[in-house]
């Protein structure tokens, strides 16, 4: 268990800057999930922490130790790769014991540690198999087992579950959560999967083009995204965005005119924005509703995706360039071409200025966010 401190981390590959000044503090025992679009530098960041990639500028501290000059093996980390990177010519047992054997641990100790890890991961009966005789999930477990055996101070995971099918992914997700509860080791976890990020993280870090856009608990990021990018990135399906202009604003109330002329009341101040400034209104699919005339816009049903418990309804409207997504009840009856009036919840609207920054203030005391407060 150890904390991790990144200061002003820079990394360039030739002329392309991949990390442009990353600052991050991870508390000991914390589970931090890094998300971001493809190519934003997530893997590079993880590899830099592991010592597999030299950095151009900045410091990396694990615990109180500056690890910049240390080789990967001396940093007290273990890494689980997306491709598992198991040694194909070794058995599960040999794969898991390789590191300890190199370190010169006595055979009885190796045996004890490897078998304990195998028990934890349900690999006890598979120890003599080679990786090609394992299923995807079992390979993944072996890779995790190999990491556990090292007893690292920090676990690094790079999209560990992305090669698994959906149901196995959920199962392994629970297993990783259980592992974190059990080992209480600091974990840094890169993923593309919203559900993994929201359920596993104590804290999510949103990365874009080598910058940290925002860090915060899953709830915090979901309810109070710092800017339009984070708002659009966290949450699936994504937040709806409607372009408009400020008509009138008060400290806790703004009236926005959408492109079609519809007026929308929003229970949020518009900050410094003067009337007629362009503004983007953001509303999540679950904060749209039918059956009302207040704060409503006229739309036409384009597509219905029934998912049983609920349906996602895609709506065309002159106020948005992309179809609006509306989360309706599972028994939603509507067909392509039907007209539908949806209301926008004034309390749940987000407003973004021209620079993309969120104008809605996080009310002090209304929502308290605890660490480990999973959705």
């Amino acid at each position, binding site marked *: 268990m150890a904390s991790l401190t990144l200061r002003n981390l820079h990394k360039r590959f030739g002329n392309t800057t991949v990390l442009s000044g990353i600052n991050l503090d991870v508390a000991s025992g914390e589970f931090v999930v890094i998300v971001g679009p493809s190519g934003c530098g997530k893997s590079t960041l993880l590899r830099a922490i*592991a*010592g*597999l990639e030299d950095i151009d500028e900045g410091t990396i501290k694990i615990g109180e130790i500056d690890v910049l000059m240390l*080789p*990967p*093996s*001396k940093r007290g*980390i*273990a*890494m689980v*790769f997306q*491709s598992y*990177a*198991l*040694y*194909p*010519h070794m058995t599960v047992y040999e794969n898991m014991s*390789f*590191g300890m054997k*190199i*370190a010169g641990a006595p055979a009885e100790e190796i045996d004890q540690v490897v078998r304990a890890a195998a028990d934890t991961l349900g690999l006890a009966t598979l120890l003599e198999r080679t990786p090609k005789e394992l299923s995807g999930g079992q390979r993944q477990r072996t890779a995790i087992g*190999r990491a556990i055996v*090292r007893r690292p101070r920090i676990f690094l995971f790079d999209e560990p579950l992305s090669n698994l099918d959906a149901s196995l992914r959920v199962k392994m997700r629970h297993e990783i959560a259980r592992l974190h509860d059990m080992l209480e080791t600091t974990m840094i976890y890169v993923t593309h999967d919203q559900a993994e990020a929201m359920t596993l993280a104590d804290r999510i870090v949103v990365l874009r083009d080598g910058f940290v856009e925002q860090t915060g608990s899953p709830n915090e990021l979901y309810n109070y995204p710092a800017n339009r990018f984070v708002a659009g990135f966290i949450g699936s399906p994504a937040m709806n965005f409607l372009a408009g202009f400020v008509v009138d604003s008060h400290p806790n109330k703004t009236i926005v005119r959408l492109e079609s002329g519809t007026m929308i009341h929003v229970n949020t101040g518009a900050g410094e924005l003067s009337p007629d400034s362009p503004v983007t209104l953001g509303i999540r699919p679950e904060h749209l509703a039918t059956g009302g005339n207040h704060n409503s816009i006229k739309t036409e049903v384009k597509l219905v995706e029934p998912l049983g418990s609920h349906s996602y309804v895609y709506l065309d409207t002159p106020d948005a360039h992309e179809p609006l997504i509306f989360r309706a009840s599972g028994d939603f009856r509507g067909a392509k071409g039907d007209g539908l009036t949806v209301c926008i919840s004034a309390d749940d609207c987000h407003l973004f200025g021209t620079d993309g920054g969120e104008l809605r203030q996080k009310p002090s005391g209304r929502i308290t966010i605890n660490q480990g407060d999973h959705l």
Partner: protein
Amino acid sequence: MKKLWSGSGVHIGLSFLAMFAIIPLLWMLSVSFMSPGEVSSFPPPLLPENPTFDNYTKLFEYSNMGRNFLNSLFVASAATLLSLTFNVSAGYAFAKLEFKGRQLLFRCLLSALVIPAQVSMIPLFLMLKGMGLVNSWIGVLIPFVASIFGIFLVRQYALSIPTEMIESARIEGASEMRIFQSVVLPLLKPILITLGLFTFLAAWNDFFWPLIVLTDSDKYTLPIALASLSREHVQDVELMMAGAVVTVTPVLVLFLTLQRFYMSGYLAGSVKG
């Protein structure tokens, strides 16, 4: 149905072609058991009338063939060992280790591939002469130490080893040497066998270079011995064929035993797998 037809068509075609390759070999074997002069009769017989081992006895008793055989065995084995040691480590380094000028150096090597070996033989010979290595084993073996083709072959194969596997071993604290031994070499096995076989065959069959370098008939390898034998016994075709059988058989057996691995290595380089 159509597929089956075209399949057997290919088989018949290939069997026909294989006959062209195998019949001379079989006849060589057959002639080596004939008595002197028998093959020169007309029409040439396919099988010996009275099969005899005389040619083989003569070969090993009156000429130095036994000695030559051991020489060849030594040269080919040593060449294989040297080639594997240097080409495999170099090929792996070019594929997976970061060092300054890697790309440039590799491109230089590749462009040197267009220079035919014969062109460099005379300069190489003069260099060896300067170093006093003419008529020495080292002299014969030097061209096998590093071959661009060998390096290239190993590199292409090593490229398919996932880098993350090597990095994983690095995180676990394995030294570069340990990674090479415990992780890389086992994965390179098919290409080791392929390259080893290539080198062994090339060294065993090599004629021109040993002919230039070796002056002492005690050091002659089989192909040179065979050539000088044919100079002395122009008439004695049956004896010559026995010599040819002795020369060809070991490599043929080696090739056939290792063929399974050899094929997998050969294909693995081209088809990523």
